């Protein structure tokens, strides 16, 4: 059984939980209080995660304390033989996939830190981080706009989303909490909606579940 050490405050942890839910991978969740508590800085936790980072995944070989390593373990477990014909959650042989995972790290370091700065008081130069995030978002927008034009609905060509979509999604979906608006990025906004509507989508604080289909309403008597 995979064990995920997580905090509901962190976008990277949400990425792991969201990917697991979308990919049908069961997780045993262990919550840490990182604020105001400091569970991630205890000696015991440092054994699992020397840099004190979250999320951490146990049960897939040695403990994994890098969020994208965690996504890799979850994604490859989700790419079961039954799904062998589908492009899959993990596309490690595709250079574009590696590039988009890199973009996700860049978004974490800009939009992600801006969010932690606003929400948890992490010291940072908010204006510089927001400017850096907008430069990245302009490139994501350009990519998704031309992708849509080619009939593509996700970051990579193929039938469905992959782990790179989820890695980028969590920072983009939560970026408004760091003072970064998404109005300038309509293709990104449509892509965010498509991810929200995926079967198995789960929310975190700051995201919203897609609506159920319109209910049948009783007519109001005059």
């Amino acid at each position, binding site marked *: 059984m995979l064990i995920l050490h997580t905090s509901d405050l962190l976008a990277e942890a949400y990425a792991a939980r969201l990917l697991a839910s979308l990919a049908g991978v069961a997780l045993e969740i262990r919550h840490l209080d990182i604020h105001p508590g400091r569970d991630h800085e205890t000696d015991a936790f440092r054994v699992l995660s020397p840099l004190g980072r979250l999320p951490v995944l146990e049960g897939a070989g040695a403990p994994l304390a890098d969020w994208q390593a965690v996504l890799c373990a979850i994604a490859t477990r989700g790419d079961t033989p039954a799904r062998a014909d589908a492009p899959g959650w993990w596309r490690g042989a595709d250079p574009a996939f590696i590039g988009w995972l890199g973009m996700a790290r860049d978004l974490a370091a800009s939009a992600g830190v801006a969010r932690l700065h606003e929400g948890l008081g992490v010291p940072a130069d908010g204006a510089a981080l927001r400017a850096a995030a907008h430069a990245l978002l302009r490139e994501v927008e*350009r990519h998704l*706009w*031309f992708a849509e034009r080619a009939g593509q609905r996700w970051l990579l060509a193929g039938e469905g989303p992959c782990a790179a979509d989820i890695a980028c999604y969590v920072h983009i979906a939560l970026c408004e909490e760091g003072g970064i608006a998404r*109005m300038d990025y*309509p293709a990104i906004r*449509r892509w965010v*909606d498509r991810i929200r509507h995926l079967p198995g989508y789960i929310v975190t604080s700051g995201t919203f579940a897609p*609506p159920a289909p319109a209910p049948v309403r*009783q007519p109001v008597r005059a």
Partner: protein
Amino acid sequence: MSGRGPWVPVAASADLAPGHVYQTMLAGQGLALWRGDDGAVNVWEDRCPHRGVRFSAGDVVGGELRCVYHAWRFAAGSGACTFIPAQPNAKVPRAIHATPWPVAEVAGLVWTALAAQGAPPADLAGEVLRALPVNRPAAAVAQEAAALMAAHPALRLFVQPLAADRAVIRGLAAGVDIMAADLLLEAARRRLEDAALMEAAAC
């Protein structure tokens, strides 16, 4: 530059995906755009009358706009509120409604107007370019757009003022590779935004 009369393009037709609410702004006023089941586009003030939450954070469900906050529903066209889940059996007061703006869909672009006078633009053709938001006032962007059109007659460009210091370049290209046109617009944006940085540095 903004088209015939007061009409301004604020979205591409292709921006209005099924179920999705598109977000933009015109002269400081937030706008929410969505396509109803009848195919007609709705341009509304981006503000639910309940608690002021942006309609653009919501969804289109059953041909109506559903606000993300308390799931109030609003009808296409009139903008009348049709359903308040917290009071499912009550008749919704007629005073509760969205605020619609004028709308016209021409040449693959969606147009609105601060005050609708005269007909929407006509005689436009070409493929719709990717819209580029620029962090410069509309006047500066319009000047650059005029220079681009003079150099490239296949381009027909429009400027949508977002707020005092920001504007969007939109346009149509007849017989020009869209990616090449996109590179031209990106270069223009860099010129506009770098100029602002140099002005700021010189102060």
